[in-house]
């Protein structure tokens, strides 16, 4: 399992670095089995990586992720009615559980969700009667004999085709999609509403949460993230910009404006500042694999909540507390609005989230140890262990420590993903994707 409890350093190594020069990565997601890794970028492209099979002749390449498929998921659009340009940036990708040979994923930009089918083709039919090998039609009058086409192997071709387009359901910007455990429905959430869709039906959706006030002047909070429970298909949670999380049960009422549970930690009055409200805004919410816990990410910390206790989180992990004194500068340069994501490992024993300077943080929930690692080319040679990093908040800077003032705030790790089973992590650093694996593997 995670071995960084034994050493002060993590044994994550084996960095595989892919440079996606075109664009900033905006989402990263492993498939349910972990053999595929999808990334979306600001240019509306989706790039899928596939893990190489174990190969005795090339033992070192075991577990490498290589590009499997690339396609343009969303294009920039213009809403003529509102004179608004709709960005093609992929906000979220979510895989559907595999049901056949083909793979399906949902990708969304601000306004439109698309269901993509990714299928392999490794055979080609040859020997058609009505057309020859080039595809040109043969003159039927010249055909004197009939033959049965036969399938011949060909180079593997991976095709991505859009199977459904779910559009025109969101007035505001979509921030989340989540596939239900029933494998038939999914939710999409924007700033003020959450809609429920059936994967087969594109021309209608059910609105299940609507927090838009009748008088927009009274608007005080927006929805920031939403997710279905991993096992209970009637349960979903959504987080708000006020730092609260609401759990809704679709069985209790069709419209889930009233929550079943309300999770909020009372604010510490001693830490009140101009920016208290901003930093309490939850940027991501994720259920644990077990379904017993959920994790929320706000600007400075990650909190683990027990679904049975609404009054406060059971764990709070500080990600970069040294930034608390810099909030004004971070407000000026807009960094305070960065939306960091967080993720669980497969056994829910560890959690991971990103920070600045291409740092990312891992917290072991059982040993309560944490580590800061860096995703950068200079520091990651293949098969070398990642060295833990330390940030010096003040006072004398020790050797190898990085001082807060020298942090590069343009290098932010917003999107990370953890393999559902193994200790493999994917870390998106602007337009580079890093994949690290645990030495023990």
């Amino acid at each position, binding site marked *: 399992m995670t071995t960084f409890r034994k050493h002060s350093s993590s044994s994550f190594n084996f960095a595989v670095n892919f440079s996606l020069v075109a664009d900033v990565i905006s989402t990263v997601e492993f498939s349910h089995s972990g053999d595929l890794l999808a990334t979306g970028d600001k240019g509306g492209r989706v790039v899928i990586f596939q893990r190489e099979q174990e190969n005795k002749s090339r033992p070192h390449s075991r577990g490498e992720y290589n590009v499997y498929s690339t396609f343009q998921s969303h294009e920039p659009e213009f809403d003529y*009615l*509102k*004179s*608004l*340009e*709709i*960005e093609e*940036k992929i906000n979220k990708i979510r895989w559907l559980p595999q049901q056949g040979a083909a793979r399906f994923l949902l990708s969304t930009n*601000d306004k439109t969700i698309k269901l993509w089918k990714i299928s392999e083709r490794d055979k080609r039919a040859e020997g058609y009667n009505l057309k020859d090998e080039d595809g040109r039609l043969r003159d039927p009058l010249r055909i004197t004999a009939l033959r049965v086409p036969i399938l011949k192997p060909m180079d593997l071709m991976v095709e991505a085709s859009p199977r459904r387009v779910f*559009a*025109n*359901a969101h*007035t*505001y*910007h979509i*921030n989340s999609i989540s596939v239900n455990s029933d494998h038939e429905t999914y939710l999409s959430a924007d*700033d*003020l509403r959450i*809609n429920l869709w059936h994967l087969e039906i594109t*021309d*209608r*959706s*059910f*609105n299940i949460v*609507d927090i*838009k006030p*009748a*008088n*927009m*002047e*009274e*608007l*005080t*909070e*927006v929805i*920031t993230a939403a997710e279905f429970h991993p096992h209970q298909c009637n349960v979903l949670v959504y987080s708000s*910009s006020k730092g609260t999380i609401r759990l809704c049960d679709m069985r209790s*009422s*069709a*419209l889930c404006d009233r929550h079943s549970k309300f999770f909020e930690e009372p604010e510490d009055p001693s830490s009140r500042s*101009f*920016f208290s*409200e*901003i930093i309490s*805004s939850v940027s991501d919410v994720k259920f644990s694999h077990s379904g017993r816990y959920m994790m929320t990410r706000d600007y400075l910390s990650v909190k683990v909540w027990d679904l049975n206790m609404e009054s406060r989180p059971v764990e709070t992990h500080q990600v970069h507390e040294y930034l608390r004194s810099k909030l*004004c500068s971070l*407000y*000026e340069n*807009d960094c305070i*609005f960065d939306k960091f994501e967080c993720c669980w490992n497969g056994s829910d024993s560890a959690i991971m989230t990103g920070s600045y300077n291409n740092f990312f943080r891992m917290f072991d929930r059982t040993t309560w140890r944490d580590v800061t690692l860096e995703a950068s080319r200079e520091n990651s040679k293949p098969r070398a262990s990642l060295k833990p990093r330390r940030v010096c908040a003040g006072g004398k800077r020790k050797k190898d420590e990085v001082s807060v003032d020298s942090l590069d705030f343009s290098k932010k790790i917003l999107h990370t993903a953890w393999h559902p089973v193994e200790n493999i992590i994917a870390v998106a650093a602007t337009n580079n994707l890093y994949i690290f694996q645990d030495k023990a593997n």
Partner: protein
Amino acid sequence: MEFKLEAHRIVSISLGKIYNSRAQRGGIKLHKNLLVSLVLRSARQVYLSDPCPGLYLAGHPGAPALPQQPGESVSGPPACWGEPPPPAACAAWPEPEPQLALPAVLEVPRAGDAEPAAPVTGAGDTLQGGEAEAAEAAWRRVEGPRETAVGGAGVPAGGSDIFPQGPGAARRPWGCPPGDEDKMSASPRVDGCRAPSPAGPEPPVPPAVCPRKRGAEGVGGGPADRPAPGSTPLKKPRRNSEEQSGGAAAAAAQEEEEMETGNVANLISIFGSSFSGLLRKSPGGGREEAEGEENGPEAAEPGQICCDKPVLRDINPWSTAIVAF
């Protein structure tokens, strides 16, 4: 004093952010603008609550900080129309598309809340009770003497000119329903089990005629240029925006919902009107201060002189800084 300066600085930064957000790709981000408006409120509260005798705050009823119309009495909220904007700001609006709708400064009313639509406004007034009446009274009182003094240089403009006027002359037609968000959506709320709320699709919000758009006829003109009946329609949106005490985020949300255009000036006018609620000290009070402030950055944009000296002199230092910004 330090808190005041810090708050001042934060307000400047926040205003800049909201101002710049109009230009970003993909439309206004509701979440970010909401957060910025919250910071604005916090900073404003600190600024207003930090006792500092040196700084004089406009916004007290009857405050002489800003020129008033002769005979104008500024009584309590929300009748603070006495504050004229920097008059040259009236001319500061390049209006390439004056016919574009000003989305939702007006509010979409709850079903049942809608007042009977005045012919010029259409549905969509969300004035609440007494406040509305007071506003209405204030408006009428204010706009009477105002009509005669329009946007002349150095002369405080009339009530309708509180917002900077653009040179665009055409007044937008009333009652054109902007895209209703539910109608635009191809997915109607299909749910046999749940009571639709609000009942049916939201009534369309008419595009408010932006007072700024009176532009050419308003600026530099004398009384003859301002037809009295013509100014009547302009009262309505003004009053409505007066009533709104919400922040820029709300305006941004309105933008999202009913927005028909991305017209820059429209956006600024929305933010401008919403700031009045943010920045005034008491409900309805302090409009003077707000007007001065919001007009500053916006008027400055086209590069024209936005404030005449007499006006500048009278605006408190805080407003001056914002204006300069």
